[in-house]
């Protein structure tokens, strides 16, 4: 039981009806996913990601090698009860509506009526489909179907979540939400194995990744280790005076390093989130998804801290719209700060702490304040944090999870 998921020289060869024309979809694959880890399986189209996941779940049988999932066989119902699976596309029963769909899967897990009802409402709310829950899912758009697929994978409060390209077809907000969700689930002790070729998504959420090509592992390791540019530093500040910038430049030049100063650009993602949040605030009608970022209360509600968190999270929807503007604004400076080398010199003022993914729930008192003033305060606090030497990467992590925890509808 050392690993949540382990494959041992896993190989899958597809042959045609006559046994000819062999396709080596997966070849001698050794993966180890630890408990409570977000693991990303990357690779170009046809590199064997989906095939690997299918073998983990007993949908395909390995040609050679074996798989261990949660210490057992991935096709065993006992193990299945602890797994949530989102396939490559959301394969749903077209004639059922969203509620019936989730109810059906809930019954397959043998959940009681009450539990089912509670979870279904929580999940519908989470994926933003409460308003359209009585429409047949056959009429859903691709992204809406994807959201139901995701809700379906979470209904049993799984210990291990296997997601095959979870963000395909989702709008940027949905993508963002899923990323937040994944991070939050990881915080709550879940193990997540996802595969994708959207690198930005993987980079944001994964602790470790493996890159497949032609069914073989090409690289594997911690994201932070693989990506960190040890030769560069980056600093983010509020709009400081030109004089201050000059001073900083001087310090940098004294180090014989290059320095560039610009105003950060909004990431398109941030801009999009902001625009939609604005539309939602003005109550523009939509027949699509409209979601809060509330995570379903039942998901690992066993921890004491989570129950407090959930209370905060499930605050009534009324005041949430107030908080969205400050929240989105707050996102901007941090997210966009990454590629700005001019701020790197401030790094000298910081301790060079290792970039570990911190899973603190340290800012909950701030999050519970929904009004604009609190948002402003928080931004100030962040600047303070930066100056007092909190690590950038940890900061960023916390930043996005903050957003989710606060139950902010502005993001959706």
């Amino acid at each position, binding site marked *: 039981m050392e690993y949540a998921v382990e494959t041992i020289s896993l190989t899958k060869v597809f042959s045609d009806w006559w046994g000819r024309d062999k396709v080596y979809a997966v070849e001698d694959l050794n993966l180890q996913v630890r408990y409570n880890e977000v693991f990303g399986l990357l690779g170009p189209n046809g590199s064997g990601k989906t095939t690997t996941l*299918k073998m983990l779940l007993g949908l395909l049988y390995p040609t050679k090698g074996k798989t261990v999932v949660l210490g057992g066989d991935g096709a065993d119902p006992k193990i299945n009860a602890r797994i949530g699976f989102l396939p490559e596309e959301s394969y*749903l029963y077209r004639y059922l509506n969203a509620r019936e769909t989730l109810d059906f899967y809930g019954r397959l897990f043998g959940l009681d009526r009450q539990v089912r009802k509670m979870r279904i409402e929580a999940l519908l709310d989470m994926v933003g489909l409460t308003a359209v829950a009585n429409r047949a899912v056959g009429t859903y758009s691709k992204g809406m179907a994807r959201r139901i697929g995701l809700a379906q994978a979470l209904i049993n409060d799984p210990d291990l979540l296997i997601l095959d390209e979870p963000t395909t077809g989702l709008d940027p907000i949905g993508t963002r939400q899923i990323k937040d969700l994944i991070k939050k689930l990881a915080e709550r002790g879940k193990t997540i194995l996802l595969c994708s070729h959207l690198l930005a998504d993987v980079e944001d959420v994964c602790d470790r990744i493996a890159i497949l090509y032609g069914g073989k592992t090409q690289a594997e390791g911690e994201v932070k280790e693989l990506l960190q540019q040890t030769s560069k530093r980056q600093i983010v500040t509020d709009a400081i005076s030109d004089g201050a910038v000059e001073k900083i430049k001087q310090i940098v030049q004294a180090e014989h390093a290059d320095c560039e100063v610009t105003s950060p650009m909004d990431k398109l993602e941030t801009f999009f989130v902001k625009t939609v949040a604005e539309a939602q605030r003005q109550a523009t009608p939509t027949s699509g998804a409209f979601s809060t970022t509330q995570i379903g209360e039942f998901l690992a509600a066993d921890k004491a801290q989570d129950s407090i968190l959930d209370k905060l999270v499930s605050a009534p929807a009324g005041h949430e719209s107030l908080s969205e503007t400050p929240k989105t604004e707050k996102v901007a400076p941090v997210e966009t700060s990454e590629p700005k080398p001019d701020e790197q010199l401030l790094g000298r003022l910081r301790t060079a702490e290792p970039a570990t993914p911190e899973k603190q729930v340290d800012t909950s008192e701030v999050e519970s304040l929904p009004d604009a003033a609190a948002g402003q305060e928080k931004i100030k606090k962040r600047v303070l944090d930066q100056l007092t030497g909190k690590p950038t990467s940890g900061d960023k992590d916390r930043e996005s999870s903050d957003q989710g925890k606060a139950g902010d509808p502005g993001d959706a």
Partner: protein
Amino acid sequence: MRSIWAVAVNTIRQALRMKIAAIFVVLLLVLLPVLGFTTTGDGTLKGRLQTFVSYGLSLTSILLCLLTLVASVYTITSDIEQRQIFTVITKPIRRFELLFGKLLGVVLLDAGLLVLFCAIIYGITAYMPSFYAATEAERTEAANEFYTARANLVLPDLDVSKEAAEDYGKLKATGQLAQFYPGFSEKEILDQLTKRRRLEKRAAPAGHELLWEFENVRPLDPGERLFIRFKYDVSVNPPDSYVYSRWLVGDYRQIKYGTPIVTPIYEPPMRKDPIRTFREIEVPADAVAEDGYLAVAFLNVTLNNMVVIFPLEDGLEVLYKADTFTANFIRAALLILLRLIFLACLGILAASFLSFPVAMMFCLAIFVTANFSGFVLESFSYMSDSVYTVYSYTLKWVIWLLPQFDKFNPAKFLVPGRLLSWSLVARVAGLVVCVRGFLMLLLGLLIFSFREIARIVV
């Protein structure tokens, strides 16, 4: 259990919402009443009833059979082709539970629709006399011959194989085989000899009598009537084509052992009946003894001057009302349900390894063969020896595996008002569902359990 039920409910929803069932339901809802008003049969009330029940039940049965095949095959193949199965079997449900759920769903759907349509057919037959303003005579005829469940006792075929073999031996010893049966195989000659011996037992020369004893005769009500239905064959055609006869119906043991007469014995006056035509003798049903014994005696009066033979199969039978029409009708519906259960198992077997169109073709082929299985089996019995041997070790078993729908056609019982006994229903349940259906289901479960679900074969 809960997950099986969830799958069953989902299967029913699929059949209803994907409008698979809808087309059949609409068709039947329109056709049944139309049939009820337009059938005339031979113009009498009984004729109308018989035609309506025959067409109505056959139509319902055939359409539901097709629905069952389509629904059971579709529910599995579509799950695989549209891949919803990926999210289903990765949940804590075993594969056989999934198939059981599908089977349960299809059978429940069938049962529901069957109840609906049978209620319609029953309603129309019950009100037919009023719709049509039948005369009193027609109503009586219908009550006696249609709104009833008459049991029929036929003469058993006696075992004469020994005598036939002896005959054969004699012919062979005297070298007469080739003379009497030129070019016949041994099996054919034996068949003919057997038939001759059997007929002998049913033949009465002038002045002789034949006695048949029946057991287990259980009329519903002793106040009702018994019917002896018979047909004559003769050795030489009488000039006026009529046969004179005397009959005796009752507990013959009282005469044989000289005990006091407790149950009445009926001796109708001398009869005159045309040859090769069905005739009926009517006697009160109290002629049957307490223990269900009844004897029928026939005397070929010397006046006739020829041998009278009761043909094999339908030469003579005793009919009596053994149950009500309603009870019989319910059993007929059950018989249809059993057929549907079998077909659902067949559909699941086919869908466990074939794609939709191929599985449908497979099922339809079997369904059609099962409808003519009697004919198929019979045609094989006319084969030459060598071919027959090959057949009896191979195809015979395959065909045996098919249920004989034609033999257990419910209309065959309801139209002539014949009793469809519980024991027959139980036999069909055992043979068709428990043995054949279960075998198919088991095979389907096995294949499905080991199948690589996500494997795409082009």
